[in-house]
């Protein structure tokens, strides 16, 4: 599979949020303002890419090498949890400005299922190293795209007159449904 097709597929055609339903918690929780949605998207993309790299190495050189595939979930979740912690400390040390923007979102990323999903999917599909990295980046870009669009719509919804029972999570889910319908239009882009 060519790199371009892989990015397009991960970011748009098979958008993580709108077709695989992963990363829904931050997608609903952190999509009230465009600024914070964008910060969240960048933080997720960053962690996703590093996760793809590290879990690929672990899977190839430890789990497969020594025949321990049943440790996949346990080792991946430990890697992600410590990675997020490490990234948080690193950013805090090197770039206080960036830390202030991303700060509160970083710990939330550990329980973002989209991160684990990237690791599971590249293992399941048997991607090579380059493919896994590209897949991680593409998935992150797709997540950012979806959450920023959502935040844009929700900023408009603030002033809309929504019936009482639909306020809050309900209307957000329905908007996400319409967004998913729109994204289905892209499915013709790739044949496979």
């Amino acid at each position: 599979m060519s790199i371009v097709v892989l990015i397009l597929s991960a970011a748009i055609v098979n958008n993580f949020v709108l077709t695989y339903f992963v990363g829904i918690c931050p997608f609903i929780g952190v999509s009230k303002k465009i600024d914070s949605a964008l910060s969240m998207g960048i933080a997720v993309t960053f962690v996703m890419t590093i996760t793809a790299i590290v879990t690929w190495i672990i899977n190839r050189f430890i789990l497969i090498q020594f025949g321990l595939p049943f440790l996949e979930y346990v080792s991946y979740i430990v890697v992600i949890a410590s990675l997020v912690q490490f990234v948080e400390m690193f950013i805090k040390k090197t770039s206080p400005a960036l830390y202030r923007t991303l700060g509160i979102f970083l710990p939330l990323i550990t329980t973002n299922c989209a991160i684990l999903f990237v690791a599971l999917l590249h293992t399941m599909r048997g991607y090579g190293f380059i493919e896994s990295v590209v897949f991680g980046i593409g998935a992150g870009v797709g997540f950012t795209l979806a959450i920023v669009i959502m935040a844009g719509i929700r900023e408009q919804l603030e002033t809309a007159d929504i019936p009482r029972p639909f306020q809050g999570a309900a209307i957000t889910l329905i908007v996400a449904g319409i967004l998913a319908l729109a994204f289905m239009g892209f499915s013709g882009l790739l044949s496979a």
Partner: protein
Amino acid sequence: MAARSISYEFTKGLLRNNPVFVQVLGMCPVLAVSTSVVNGLGMGLATSFVLVSAALIASVIKPIVPSEVRIPVYAVVIATFVTIADLVLRAFFPPLSASLGPYVPLIVVNCVIMGRIEAFATRNRPIAAVSDALGMGAGFTAALMVLGAVREVLGSGAFFGIELFGEGFTPLLVMILPAGAFLTLGVLMAVFNAAKEGSHMVLIKAESKAEA
């Protein structure tokens, strides 16, 4: 926290504090695997198993876990039970395992589980922790099955895989596509809110009558 009865801890997860409709937690599996009732039931039971086992262990080991590293420790406990659930599904229910796919391992990061451990299991005795987990698991399973039933009936014209309408029925394809999952859950959640508001009104009326 005042000790409440075991049955209270169990029933609060079913409706009042339903993890899906009220707390809006664990959305990924709810949306992804609710294309049919059977998938919903399988996912609900697998999640409940992990939730109950992890809540019990977390409640028991709590005194020896330093609070700085508790989240990674609980994550490892959860991941262990998810691995067990995954292997059991693969060995005994291969078709179900295939249709749930990568969403079984994703139970590891289901926020309902970590949420209940953090908010309840580690602050209560094992018996209360288990009954809370059972109630939350049952509420989660029920929500998945309701969503699965609506989507299966409208999207494939069947219930538990049994054809309902015969030849003349055209399935609403959108219901089993991703968009249908969002739309159905959104509408169900609004119905749930409206019903809750309605029952509140009845209660308030009854109270004001009693006072008068």
